[in-house]
């Protein structure tokens, strides 16, 4: 098949020029020194990587991992019952699934702004609480880790529900009957039959949520209020206001290492079929 070469060529060129070369440049820049007016200059140095060990940056990296893990756990907690509900629905299953996918198709930025609108000092939540006489002064609901966590869960919940649904949907209902016949109460059947058998979906969903969360920029930026909350903000900050491209590059590489390691460890087998 000679034609195959020409069919793959455009994608090869595009991904080489606009993915591989740019990431290669980041690798090179991470070993250079910061230029006097931004940009990079010689000499070569490993200092950008030793700076990563600074407690200040270590704390940001750890916080990103922790926030992503917490968001993943919350998505699992919210998403599993929902996926179970959809998988067991007899009617309108298509509609229920559509309602999960719908927010995924609407602008991520708009969905994040919706929470700014609800949570700000003069937002609906504070206005409602004040009108109900529960509080006098508005609560500071925005610009903290809790708001960022909420935004992450809201943004990536569909990624958790879809793989969970596809494993739960394939489970044979006869398994539950068998468990009941053998004397298992519904909760015991849930924890000892349904959840263990859904492990592939739990794994895939968790990785699909964790990966975008750990590298998130927009959510911590808008809901975290411009503080350097997560590693994505640190990268952006180094390339814009701080103008320290070499350090920004080394932070980017640290983030890439985390992401690629997770994919290789957990997602490789499941993803083999998709492409």
């Amino acid at each position, binding site marked *: 098949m000679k034609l195959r070469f020409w069919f793959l060529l455009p994608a090869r060129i595009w991904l080489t020029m*606009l993915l591989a070369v740019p990431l290669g440049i*980041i690798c090179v820049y991470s070993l250079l020194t910061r230029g006097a007016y931004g940009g990079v200059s010689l000499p070569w140095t490993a200092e950008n990587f030793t700076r990563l060990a600074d407690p200040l940056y270590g704390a940001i990296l750890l916080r990103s991992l922790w926030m992503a893990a917490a968001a993943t756990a919350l998505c699992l907690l919210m998403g599993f019952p929902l996926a179970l*509900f959809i998988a067991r629905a007899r009617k309108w299953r298509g509609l229920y699934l559509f309602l999960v996918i719908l927010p995924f198709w609407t602008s991520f930025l708009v969905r994040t702004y919706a929470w700014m*609108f609800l949570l700000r000092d*003069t937002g609906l939540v504070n206005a409602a609480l004040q009108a109900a006489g529960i509080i006098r002064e508005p609560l500071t609901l925005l610009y903290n880790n809790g708001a960022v966590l909420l935004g992450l869960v809201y943004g990536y919940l569909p990624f958790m529900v879809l793989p969970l649904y596809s494993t739960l949907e394939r489970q044979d209902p006869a398994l539950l009957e068998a468990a009941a016949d053998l004397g298992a109460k519904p909760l015991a059947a849930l924890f000892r039959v349904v959840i263990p058998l859904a492990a592939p979906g739990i794994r895939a969903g968790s990785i699909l949520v964790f990966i975008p969360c750990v590298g998130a920029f927009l959510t911590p930026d808008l809901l975290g209020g411009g503080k350097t909350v997560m590693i994505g903000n640190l990268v952006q900050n180094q390339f814009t206001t701080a103008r320290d491209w070499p350090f920004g590059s080394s932070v980017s590489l640290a983030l890439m290492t985390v992401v690629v390691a997770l*994919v290789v460890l957990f997602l490789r087998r499941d993803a083999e079929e998709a*492409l």
Partner: protein
Amino acid sequence: MKPGLSLYAAAVYAFLHLPLLILAAFSFNSSRFTVWEGFSLRWYRAALSDPNLAEAAWNSVVIAIVSTILSTMVGTLCAYGFWKRRDRVLSNALYLSLVTPEIVMGVSLLAFFQWTFRFLHWRLGLHTVILAHVAFSIAYVVIVIAARLRTLDGSLEEAAMDLGATEWGAFRLVTLPALGPGIASAAMLALTVSFDDYVITSMVAGVDSETLPMWIYATARRGANPTINAISALIVVFFGALILLSERLRGSQK
């Protein structure tokens, strides 16, 4: 257990949809504040008469259409090539483009474009945004088209070639027409991811190439503004219509 589960599901659906519904409802509020004063279309008028917003929306439309056409062509050809025989390096590169955090892709593309300025006479602008958008859209197109190709019977092409068709003829006359609905839904997906992107776009856009998400971001950072609610509602309705259309297309595939 069943009623409890339904109640829980209803609560999660409310969590997913209420914020956007409230956002949209307050786009019709005549007051600037989060207190309902009365129905009004003033924020829609404000949105539609803002020249910066109009220019940003126009840029977004141009970028989305051009990058969708390019990424759909490149991605369809690539998926077809994979269908013949897998290519491990290229498919790993596509996975990499999917999992690379947007901010990392953004800064790496910025560094790349800045580097090319040393020997190429060009600047950041709509073209750099389009190049970047195609780079991250190809993988989505390939996944959708590859799923469609798996349902096709490869022996149809062999039959066509036994009857004298060239390789290209077999592709163009047999496989490509069967891919039609798949290509349409791949293009829809590419269009949405392009139209929606803020993070990568903001890194590679020039001074004259502000997009709609960049306008929303900049305005949201300055504080609450019901004009954002109005434009958000318009975007949600537009993409709601688009996804309904693409679901119908997918339905007609069966």
